[in-house]
């Protein structure tokens, strides 16, 4: 009986506390920079696409909403011929961002992407690509990777040692 009365008193005290509700359309809630919302494809500091079409994001996606096709540029670098995300399937889990070896795919603090037509939820590469670098401003995959391209040979990337000559006995 006493606990019931105490409960009533504690509830009554809430008359003077402020409501927790955020009045959404008028008042935007704070979204942290690492909020998992709309997916974007970022570019490296030189303005090139970061995506190397490795397919890891499509493989890890639990709802299979990512589809892409690899193609090779003339300088030997890879890029996605098309890159398609079906946002009507996407669950914003962020596993594609975790899987991405080049920081290309990133989730942004934006969730307002309703459409009347379901077909409009399918985003192509032109819709996904942004002009910025996203959360990692200095990273450029081809400058640190050991892959040979038209502009650099193996071992010439940043912090990369010369390749070992496996045929030689010298140290």
């Amino acid at each position, binding site marked *: 009986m006493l606990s019931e009365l105490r409960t009533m008193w504690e509830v009554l005290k*809430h008359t003077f506390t402020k409501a927790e509700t955020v009045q959404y359309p008028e008042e935007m809630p704070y979204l942290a920079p690492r909020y998992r919302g709309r997916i974007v494809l970022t570019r490296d500091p030189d303005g090139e696409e970061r995506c190397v079409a490795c397919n890891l994001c499509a493989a890890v996606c639990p709802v299979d909403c990512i589809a892409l096709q690899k193609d090779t540029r003339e300088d030997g670098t890879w890029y996605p011929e098309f890159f398609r995300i079906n946002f009507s399937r996407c669950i914003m889990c962020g596993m594609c961002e975790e899987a991405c070896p080049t920081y290309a795919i990133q989730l942004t603090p934006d969730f307002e992407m309703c459409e009347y037509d379901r077909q409009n939820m399918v985003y192509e590469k032109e819709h996904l690509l942004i002009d910025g670098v996203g959360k990692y401003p200095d990273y450029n995959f081809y400058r640190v990777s050991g892959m040979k391209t038209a502009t650099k040979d193996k071992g010439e990337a940043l912090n990369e040692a010369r390749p070992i000559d496996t045929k030689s006995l010298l140290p």
Partner: protein
Amino acid sequence: MSELMPVLLALTILIGGVAGAAVLTWFERRLLGVWQDRYGPNRLGPLGIGQVAADMIKLLFKDDWVPPFADRLVFIFAPTAIVVAMMMGFAVVPFAPDMMIIDVNIGLLFFLGMTSLAVYSVLLGGLASNNKYALLGGLRSAAQMVSYEVFMGLSLIGVVMMTGSFSLVDIVEAQTDVWFCFSQILGLIVFIIAGIAESHRLPFDLPEAEHELTAGFHTEYGGMKFAMFMLGEYLGLMLISCMIVTLFFGGWHGPMLIGEWLPPFFWFSFKVFVIICFFVLLRAAIPRPRYDQLMSLGWKVMLPITLVNILVTGAVLLWMEGVA
């Protein structure tokens, strides 16, 4: 003209009752919001009062559907019974010295009889739905309301003994100096608890306990028939609040120390408002008891309390008679 007055008053109370119940649906949600640190319906119109109209329009345009397996006649009759019974109950409520439809010398019994009739609504609704959950809800409500009716009647015997009359006007007049909420505090507590159980509101809404019985006795109801049940429930809430004010809080009289410098109807409605807020607070704060807890609370706690109350009240009255 004087013959027309009761008719006009009756119409006013009828419309006022329905409108009050409609506004109460919104008010209760807003007040629950205040106590649960949220807003409640606040979009339509000033403070969200337009929600009442929106809900009403929605319910009116719903398909008026009777399940094919239900007992059609009883199914349709059940929701009207509760509204009619509760509305009839308002006939004897003295809102102000000259603002009541009828002052009968058995007003209190009439009120008790009308609330008892409301049991039929829930019972028949549960039975006619031909649905397991509805039947369970109907069973629960039958047991709950019949047993709490006992204490509800008995808790008022103290008031009747002190007044010497069943007339509600006499009861209010007897509280001109001291309200009965002091001398009949036990009766008040029992009457409030029995009143909640009688109008099957939270925390005693076991007939419609949504966690166990989907919606209890009105599982199969929709549209306006469902709205009638809700209307009846809110009318019952208002009626119980009116009766608590009339019987224990001095009816239309102003507070004892402040006196009556405002119209009697204001004091009456203000007190009813406070009691309704209290009922909403109960809903916001107290969880629903288990069914056996409800029953044992009734028969093992409430019944002895009322009997002791009657005994003590009678003894004191006899002793005072002897002294005088």
